[in-house]
């Protein structure tokens, strides 16, 4: 009797919950015919709507591409193409003239013109602007802008900057009056750009946007919701259950599950090479180029790409990818050759192998954790013991900036985004301040590329840099990374360039 009472209470409780459950069934993708596109991403931009406070890549780009535009975009071959600027040319060694698109409006009704461009650059070169990532890292050479006429603006640099237009792909133009009236901090919560959507609300777990019908990139859906789901499995489940229409970023081993859910998996080559960089300047075994080359020969990169990136990535041959200006297709890198690796190690005085310590971060790339495990296993076959320690980005950054690594190697992404030009990783990594690697001859070549305004000559220089740097092997180049997107049923019109999704083209059934 008593037992029955207890069970009765439990049963009634379960029924109450079940009633609540059925009454709140989720909307599925097919039900969102009103034109709301829901996107699941790994994270929202920590600085919310402020496009200058963080790097130009993920996670911010998934949100900012919906709200803002830059003057130029960089296509899949690393070439600068028109966006808010229609054309450009150098007018002196240290200035470029940009002709702007006419008839463009910001979502608050302000006109886009040369004054808006000037206001953006005035901020970025100001003391406060220089303290932002975009003002410091992406635009170190820019000194200011001048309005020539309403739709023409000149941008000045401190040195000759051959690829200034491509660099400007990282600079979103904000509505100057909104920026001035509300201030940078206020605009963070309510940004105003010329893109296809405008912010309705923002929180750490959701950004809601509505269509800006007056945008020059007029969107096809009425509303958009961006939801951060840090866990890849959660993102996929949200797509499978129809709670989101599209997700950015799944693991390669989830591709089949995504297909089984009738999702369309799209692979986009990322302009990034995953690597283990060698702490060359601190001495140790990796100071010897033969050791660095041996380590490159000792890892089967193609097998890693095939098995761990589902055959959608490629083994890296150099520090940049084929989508980047400056890639050299004649550079074949270090094909897997363990016998040659052992020979080189013996020649370098390590016939019995050696032990290396490395610091890595994981979670930045698809399968990165598994890739490091595969590298360790491959190196063990040539008697190299790789001991790696997983650290956070906050631990990684100061060691990278000051080159205070205690180990022989560290995880490093050779990232050419957003400018899509080989100069980015080479400028940053070859002979940087407190360098982990520095070769003066290569550095001289990199510097000459910075100032060469002739595109063909400049490309030849960058390709020569690729030959030399690859021979020097400052890193164990691993794989050309990939970005994976999954579209749910009914989503059409997807395209992405330099990680910026063209949201205006998307439709959802």
């Amino acid at each position, binding site marked *: 009797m008593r037992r029955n009472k207890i069970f009765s209470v439990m049963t009634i409780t379960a029924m109450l919950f079940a009633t609540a*459950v059925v009454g709140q*069934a989720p909307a599925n993708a097919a039900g969102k015919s009103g034109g709301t596109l829901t996107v699941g991403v790994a994270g929202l931009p*920590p600085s919310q709507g402020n496009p200058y406070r963080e*790097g130009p890549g993920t996670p911010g780009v998934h949100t900012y591409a919906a709200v803002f535009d830059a003057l130029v975009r960089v296509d899949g071959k690393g070439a600068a193409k028109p966006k808010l600027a229609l054309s450009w040319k150098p007018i002196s060694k240290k200035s470029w003239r940009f002709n702007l698109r006419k008839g463009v409006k910001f979502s608050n009704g302000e006109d886009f013109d040369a004054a808006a461009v000037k206001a953006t650059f005035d901020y970025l070169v100001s003391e406060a602007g220089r303290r932002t990532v975009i003002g410091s890292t*992406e635009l*170190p050479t820019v000194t200011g802008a001048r309005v020539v006429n309403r739709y023409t603006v000149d941008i000045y640099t401190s040195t000759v900057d051959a690829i200034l237009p491509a660099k400007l792909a990282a600079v979103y133009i904000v509505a100057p009056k909104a920026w001035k009236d509300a201030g940078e901090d206020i605009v963070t919560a309510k940004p105003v750009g010329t893109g296809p959507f405008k912010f309705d609300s923002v929180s*750490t*777990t959701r950004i809601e946007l509505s269509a800006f019908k007056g945008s020059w990139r007029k969107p096809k859906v009425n509303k958009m919701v961006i939801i951060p789901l840090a866990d890849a499995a959660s993102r996929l489940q949200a797509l499978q*259950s129809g709670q989101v229409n599209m997700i950015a970023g799944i693991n390669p081993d989830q591709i089949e599950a995504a297909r089984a859910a009738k999702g369309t998996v799209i692979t986009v080559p990322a302009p990034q090479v995953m690597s283990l960089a060698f702490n060359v300047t601190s001495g140790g075994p990796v100071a010897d180029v033969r050791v660095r080359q041996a380590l490159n020969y000792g890892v089967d990169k193609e097998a890693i790409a095939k098995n761990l990136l589902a055959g959608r990535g490629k083994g890296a041959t150099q520090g940049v990818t084929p989508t980047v200006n400056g890639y050299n297709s004649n550079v074949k890198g270090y094909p897997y050759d363990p016998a040659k690796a052992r020979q080189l190690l013996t020649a370098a005085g390590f016939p019995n192998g050696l032990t290396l310590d490395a610091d890595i971060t994981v979670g930045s790339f698809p399968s990165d954790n598994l890739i490091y495990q595969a590298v360790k296993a491959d190196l063990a076959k040539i008697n190299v013991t790789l001991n790696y320690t997983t650290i956070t980005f906050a631990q990684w950054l100061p060691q990278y900036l000051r080159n205070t690594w205690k180990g022989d190697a560290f995880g490093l992404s050779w990232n050419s985004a957003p400018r899509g030009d080989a100069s980015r990783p080479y400028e940053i990594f070859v002979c940087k301040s407190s360098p982990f690697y520095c070769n003066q001859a290569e550095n001289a070549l990199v510097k000459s590329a910075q100032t060469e305004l002739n595109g063909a000559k400049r490309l030849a220089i960058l390709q020569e840099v690729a030959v030399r740097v690859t021979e020097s092997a400052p890193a164990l180049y691993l794989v050309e990374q990939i970005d994976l997107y999954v579209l749910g049923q009914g989503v059409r019109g997807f395209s992405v360039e330099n990680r910026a999704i063209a949201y205006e083209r998307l439709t959802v059934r």
Partner: protein
Amino acid sequence: MLNRRGKALWSRIIQLLILLWSVSTVLFLLLRLSGDPALILAGEGATPEIIEAIRIANGFDKPLITQYFVFIRDVINLDFGNSLVNSQPALSFVLQYLPSTLKLTFLAIVFNTIVAIPAGIWLGAKPNQRKRRVLSTIVSVAQGTPSYVIGLVLIQIFAVWLGWLPSIANTGPGAWILPTATLAFALAPNLIRVLAANVEDTTRQDYYRTAKANGANPTELLIKHSLPNALLSATSLLGAQFAFLLSGALITEFIFAWPGLGLILVQSITNLDFPTVQATVFVVACLVFFVNLVMDQVFRLADPRLRKSQL
């Protein structure tokens, strides 16, 4: 002259102040050891000059002791500064997410209690029955299952296969159910086992045997003699679980994109957003203190022996 209750109240206030000062101080020092936020703010390509400018702008260039006194002065005024990444006042930013955390915590505790108390009593009343031993084994296995797994399995069943429930927060009350169930299923096994052990233990006590010898029926034995004692120590665990949830059910918040304090805390630690970390921990410390205060009062009400002691 303060009466005993007044003295006890002052004692509690002083305890709270000491707690907040200790937590703030330790956190201040630990955060400064964890890294340099100027580096994160500047980005990986920044020059040393820019990094230094960011330090100066945020006061990180000043001696540590100076930073500490400025920090304590501001904390006294409940001013934690602005978030380093989104520029909003840190405390009000954190407080925006407090209701969401409280909601999840409350729901999880209620669901946990509803499931665990009947199950714990049933198990403890006759622990050696075969079917109860089976449930006991299931509970033990469940106790070792990470909430991460529970969450993903629940999503797979109820959101993906059955399509009954949303798994993403902020889509209506239905979205509360899976995170609540995830937390409750993660917490309930512990409470069930404690309660079952307590109930079983009371059946071996003299007062229980005396009542039984005097002819008390099983229901009377359970309700009058077993449960009051068994529930008392289970309440202590419930209080600890409540405090744990307030500090952020991080994994659950991650899986369900639940806008809670745990999520904020991790994001702000990742970004070395000192003001937000400090404000979050301050709020959590206050909450845990008040939960403990309430639990003390619950004990006093439940246990006549404690009423004679201080507040």
